[in-house]
């Protein structure tokens, strides 16, 4: 299958994938490890189509199987992710403590709109400038701290509109710097 469009991948990316595949192949859970390491190595933390095609060739995994795996696990992204990630918990504990209002606030603040397909309980959206990705999860396991918002993988508990505002402002200040 020489003619799959892996031509747009750089030599370094290909070498990296070759290395990861040879290290992981044969181990239990190899495919997940390969996908995770390759996604992590991408500046925008996602798996472009060409990358998946190349992995499919090198690891001898059918394309549809790959697609099935990356769409099953929320961990994998098929779209470029923002430089910052804000994750609002929509679990029961956080919901009863007003997480829907926090979510609305972040969406307004970032200028994001809920998708129309009624899938508002699970959301991933990135601002047009590629700066920030907003996600929701169904519980961080930190319910005692409800409502919980995670900003760039740091957990913030007992959030209210004001403290959330502060974190978002801190983010945009960070962005402003070169």
């Amino acid at each position, binding site marked *: *299958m020489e*003619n*799959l469009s892996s031509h747009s991948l750089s030599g370094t990316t290909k070498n990296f994938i070759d290395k990861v595949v040879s290290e992981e192949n044969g181990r239990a859970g190899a495919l997940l490890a390969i996908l995770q390491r390759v996604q992590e190595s991408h500046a925008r933390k996602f798996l472009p*189509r060409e990358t*998946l*095609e190349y992995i499919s060739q090198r690891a001898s995994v*059918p*394309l*549809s*199987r*790959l*697609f*099935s795996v990356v*769409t*099953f696990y929320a961990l994998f992204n098929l779209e470029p992710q923002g430089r910052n990630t804000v994750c609002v918990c929509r679990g029961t504990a956080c919901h009863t403590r007003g997480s829907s209002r926090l979510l609305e606030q972040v969406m307004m603040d970032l200028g994001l709109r809920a998708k129309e397909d009624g*899938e508002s309980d699970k959301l991933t959206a990135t601002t047009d400038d590629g700066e920030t990705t907003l996600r929701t999860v169904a519980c961080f396991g930190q319910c005692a701290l409800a409502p919980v918002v995670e900003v760039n993988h740091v957990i913030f508990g007992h959030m209210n509109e004001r403290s959330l505002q502060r974190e978002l402002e801190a983010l945009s200040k960070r962005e402003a710097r070169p």
Partner: protein
Amino acid sequence: MSQQVSVRIDGELCTAAEGQTIYEVAQANGRSIPALCHMEGLSSAGACRLCLVEVAGIGRLLPACTTPVNTGMSVTTESENLAHHRVMALELLFVERNHICSVCVSNGHCELQALAQKLGVTHVRYPYNYPRLSVDTSHPRFVLDHNRCILCSRCVRVCDEIEGAHVWDIAARGINSMLVSDLDRPWGESENCTSCGKCVQACPTGALVEKGRAVEEMTKRNVVVTTLAAKRDAHP
């Protein structure tokens, strides 16, 4: 020679080989358990939940197609409780997509429809989802209509296990699950598809069909798949 085990199926004592599934043993002993995702010659998926049976001493229903028999097992394949669950499983399949038999090319030759008739499903008690789904007509000879797909994965398995191409798989999960070819590309663009048509023959509904068929015209030949699988077993 594999170990022999004895099991009771609806009270009748049956001998089976170790590793056989309840479904296989029941069938070998003249019982027919309803099934949609099961297909002779393919691996079992346990996707449709139509083949649920009762096993004495186990508090929940088990899928016959994926449960191996054990010595001393006592299985019930027909009961009021099972009938209730099987009807419910069918109703849930119906509400999930848009199954409009009267305009379907497979009307009269559909396993979902036939099973619903056999189990006496005259109406559906749950609200329909009416999802908006696409129809993939990009393949020169075949069509995939997601509206009629029950996600049984027979096409996925026949393409992988018999043809060796693995064009199909099921993407996402739960209510968002969807049959995809390659990286969710139009079927006609698939580099791996050999156009063998086995997925069409294996599909229990009108989801995968030949082009150019009018309503009620699409008949399927499951036996093609089963025969191929048997031949393959004979010449490994």
